[in-house]
């Protein structure tokens, strides 16, 4: 049975549970293939103050590294948006079981708003597209069944 992630968005617990759900579907992740990326998810609060959460894709492994300092974490690409945008995306996933077509990462970032992408170089920028299937599957996990042993 589908249960929303029992943690506020954004929070380290929310991302930890998200990744646990994604990793629980091993066959899907293997089918999507290996990936290699340090992704920063930046959430801007109502005062545009950023909070950055790190996700590391390494082969078939995915790790949520919690709230990070951008300089230390060195993300290859950062996807950034307001807290309202992120929450709307999460709500879409929770409602439909996965993002509807207007709330996918790519659709929200395609014209640079409401999500924007920044990278130190074009290779990092292009990695966002190289692993789009995996990244979308990770976020869509917010709409997948809860993990019984996730420690929530």
């Amino acid at each position: 049975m589908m249960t929303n992630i029992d943690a506020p968005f954004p929070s380290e617990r929310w991302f930890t549970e998200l990744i646990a759900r994604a990793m629980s579907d091993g066959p899907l992740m293997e089918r999507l293939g290996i990936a290699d990326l340090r992704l920063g998810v930046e959430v801007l609060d109502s005062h545009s103050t950023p909070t950055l959460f790190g996700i590391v894709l390494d082969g078939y492994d995915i790790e949520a590294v919690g709230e990070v300092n951008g300089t230390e974490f060195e993300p290859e690409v950062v996807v950034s948006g307001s807290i309202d945008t992120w929450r709307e995306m999460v709500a879409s996933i929770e409602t439909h079981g996965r993002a509807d077509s207007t709330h996918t990462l790519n659709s929200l970032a395609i014209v640079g708003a409401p999500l924007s992408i920044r990278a130190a170089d074009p290779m990092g920028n292009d990695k966002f597209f190289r692993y789009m299937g995996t990244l979308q599957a990770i976020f869509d996990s917010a709409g997948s069944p809860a993990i019984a042993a996730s420690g929530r």
Partner: protein
Amino acid sequence: MGLDLDYLERSARGEFDLGWLRNGKSEWGVRAKPSKTGLTMRDIAIGTYGEVPDHAPRRTMAPRGSDVDPDVPDLGYTINDKAEVWSDNLLDLYEEGVSRQWSATRDIPWGELPDLAPDLEHSMCQLATVLSQVEMVAADFPAKWLWRINQDFVEAKMFLCTQVMDEARHTEVFRKRALANGGGLGRASAVVERFLQLILDAESYDEGSALMHLLGEGIVLSLFRAGEFLAPSHVEKHIFRLCMQDEARHVAYGTMHLRYRLERDPLMAEDYHAYLDKGEEIIAMIFATPEIVEPTMILAAGGVEQAAELGAGAGNVLRHQIIEEYLKRCKHAGLDRQGRLHLPEVLIKDVPGAMAVGAA
């Protein structure tokens, strides 16, 4: 070299030669350790086996690192310098290419294609026709050069083989899309064909790779990405997303290959500028080709009637994105095209950093 009848008789008597066993110079005891995804190409790039020569010492299919019989024939490879094909991300891109394959038969929910208004179906089919036309060149071009690339650079050849497979699948998926929902194939444009001809007729791998991996596939990557707002249904969105991942790998190779090449031979920059000058001139014509521009605008706007009002804006956004991303990739590769673009002012107006040649 002929049939050694004496050896046949000796071996039949159990008198083995064993020269291959006793005189081998291979690194006995080398044990490549699998990493967590399995035994990767990077895992086996160890010892002398991982040493790729800057210039191949011979032109044979002998595996790099093997003991080579001195009598092996010269196979006539013409690409014998590593810098001609190499990139630092090659091994990882190969593994990724193999790992992230998908099936245009199995992985697309063809049964969920909705009936579309005729103008949208025609537009989607026209775009699918163009993409089916252009994608196969990205298989033909590597295939044309593969047999000329020295076997010492086998990782580059292997990566290009994954690209050939990727492009076959792209051609397949767009051909299938054109035929799956009642629209059928549209018109194949002569301007598009001229660009494909430029790639196929390239006099060197350098030239063709710059035109294809960097310029052509960069444009197609942006187009696939824009599939999010071009696709009339979730089925096409899925197609575009899957193709986008493959295309981004090819562009990553092309960008980093150019960088590798220019770092070792900066004087080649002018050659590359000349290749891209020619390519951009045709790309400018493609930006003014109705068979491409109009279906894109109609799909973005949601219909012919809306396209007049909304389509031009969407087209501009897409074109700006294409040019801006292309300029950034060129710069990252070490080739600054800002101020050297061979695109008319009307196409690059408002694109950050873009300036046509002679416009300063």
